[in-house]
């Protein structure tokens, strides 16, 4: 299914935000994302994992033009996005759609679910008649009964709302779907149904997924490539099968061990001490060293270089990378 040609490539992308505090004439800023490089292939299910505050959503929003990037480049279908909002960036934005975490909050409370699904098509100047016919087709594909389409978000269940959000995203036939924790707000049974729907829709529409998730069981099941973010940096990226069978970075191991899903981690649990530091003052050297059980004197001095323990498997760590087959 995956194609070798690059589809969406990010090179040394950095996003900087101004600090609100501090003197007016001496504005300070911090890097929410620093020097990120990724390669996403067409039809990939690219999973971005990491703790809250690691910059996953910021990266997604930057790709979708909701944040300006400070430096770096984005290549989409061979075109190079050099500046925020240039013609290649607009092409990426128009080919993409997004599904948010909280379905009720991401739907207009005054519109029925049917109208919400229809709205992106109307924005693209598709006639009402064609749009309504497409809504009926999408509702059928996503398992939404016709009577639910006449209800408002507060009158439908959370699972039905999330289905409507997925139908809305698919209504303009996107090439790439950005999913920002689409399962977090759902109950286990509803989660299972939405997982199945996402897998079916990927095959039916030939989509590429950019998935931000805490559900590592789902990432393992559906993902083809995985990247782990920590404090705005990528610490490990690998093909999904390689990553889940043999995570190399100590943070990736701790993250996987934190998953309570029975299929993700079978070995002893690794409990990380403390919390992710503030991106305003990131630790020197390796950003993970204050919480790392294997830290060495070099870790707080020098930024780790990229190592390549396997094909397409990149790890940013000073340590000799042991084989820790899971």
């Amino acid at each position, binding site marked *: 299914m995956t194609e070798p040609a690059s589809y969406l490539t990010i090179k040394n992308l950095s996003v900087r935000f101004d600090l609100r505090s501090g003197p007016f004439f001496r504005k300070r800023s911090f890097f929410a994302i620093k020097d990120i490089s990724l390669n996403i292939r067409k039809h990939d299910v690219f999973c971005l994992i990491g703790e809250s505050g690691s910059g996953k959503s910021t990266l997604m929003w930057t790709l979708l033009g909701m944040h300006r990037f400070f430096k770096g480049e984005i290549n989409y279908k061979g075109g190079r996005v050099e500046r925020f909002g240039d013609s290649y960036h607009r092409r990426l934005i128009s080919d993409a759609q997004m599904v948010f975490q909280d379905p009720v909050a991401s739907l207009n409370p005054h519109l029925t679910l049917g109208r919400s699904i229809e709205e992106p098509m109307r924005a693209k100047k598709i006639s009402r008649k064609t749009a309504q016919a497409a809504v009926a087709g999408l509702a059928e594909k996503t398992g939404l009964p016709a009577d639910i389409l006449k209800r408002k978000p507060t009158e439908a269940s959370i699972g039905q709302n999330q289905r409507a959000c997925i139908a809305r995203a698919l209504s303009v036939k996107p090439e790439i779907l950005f999913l920002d924790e689409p399962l977090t707000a759902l109950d286990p049974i509803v989660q299972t149904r939405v997982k199945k729907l996402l897998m079916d829709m990927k095959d039916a529409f030939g989509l590429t997924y950019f998935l931000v998730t805490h559900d590592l069981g789902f990432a393992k*099941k559906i993902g083809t490539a995985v990247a782990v973010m920590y404090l705005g940096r990528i610490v490990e990226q690998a093909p999904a099968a390689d990553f889940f069978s043999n995570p190399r970075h100590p943070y990736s191991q*701790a993250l996987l061990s934190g998953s309570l899903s029975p299929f993700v981690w079978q070995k002893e*649990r690794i409990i990380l*001490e403390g919390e992710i530091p503030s991106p305003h003052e990131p630790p020197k050297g390796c950003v993970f060293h204050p919480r790392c059980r294997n830290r060495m004197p070099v870790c707080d001095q020098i930024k780790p270089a990229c190592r390549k323990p396997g094909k397409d498997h990149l790890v940013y760590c000073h340590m000799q990378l042991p084989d820790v087959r899971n």
Partner: protein
Amino acid sequence: MAVNASVSADKTDHRPHVSEEPVLCVQNLSVGISKRGHGTNILKNVSFSVNKGEILGLVGESGSGKSALAKTIVRLESPFDIISGTIRFRDSNLANLKERELRKIRGRHISLVMQNPHKTMDPVFTMGYQLKEVVRAHELMEKQPASKKSLLLSRIHGFLKDVGISSPDLRLSQYPHEWSRGMIQRAQLIMGFSVKPDLLILDEVTSALDPTICLQILDIILRLRKSSRTGIILITHDLSVVREICDRVAVMKNGEIVETGTLKEVFEKPCHPYTKRLVAAVFEDEGDVGK
């Protein structure tokens, strides 16, 4: 980073702390809109018990009545009323107690830790002020002389250290919005356990937390339970959490408890169709993503 021998590695490891003596016994509890029974009941004939040192997992989908049950146990069920049933706790029926008597029980003998930690803290006071207030309130309830300021502060520092919150002086001078969700949740847990209550109700304390922080919270719950032998009701919709730390499970659906049993019974041989679906949803085979 500490390598724990596993939060759950050996379930028998935490069974010795469980005694057969029930700390809470709820029988045929029905809660609804009016005492005349015209409205729909939100809890219907709920019966269960919690033993000393036991963790009972209460699971079910959103709206199944889990949080309503938690609030009813501490008699904060308003605007609903208890229609029938008993809540036996320390030789008294909480369902019949007056507000003045209930105030003596809440916080001292039964603690409730709520979901959404930021919403449960007052945004205009520092965390230090709010934590000191809790300790002082407990001293007053226990009719102990008020601790000196320095002693109170060192006690709170000790609590924070227990749950892995560093730089306590700085942290206590900060406001709730400056603390992360995981930190407030940890602080609330330690405050809940600090009075060594007979019963602790944890309402979705791990939902919306990162996996690494969730693991820290579960580890703290197990450690504190071990030291205080408190009976715990852990309300969650995440069966993986239940499997990790609970001794027994009760499954709720539409205001009723449809199945109760040990972990083994519920996870290996679920009887009720809803429990079967719930278990299948979480522990589905790798290749099969539910129906």
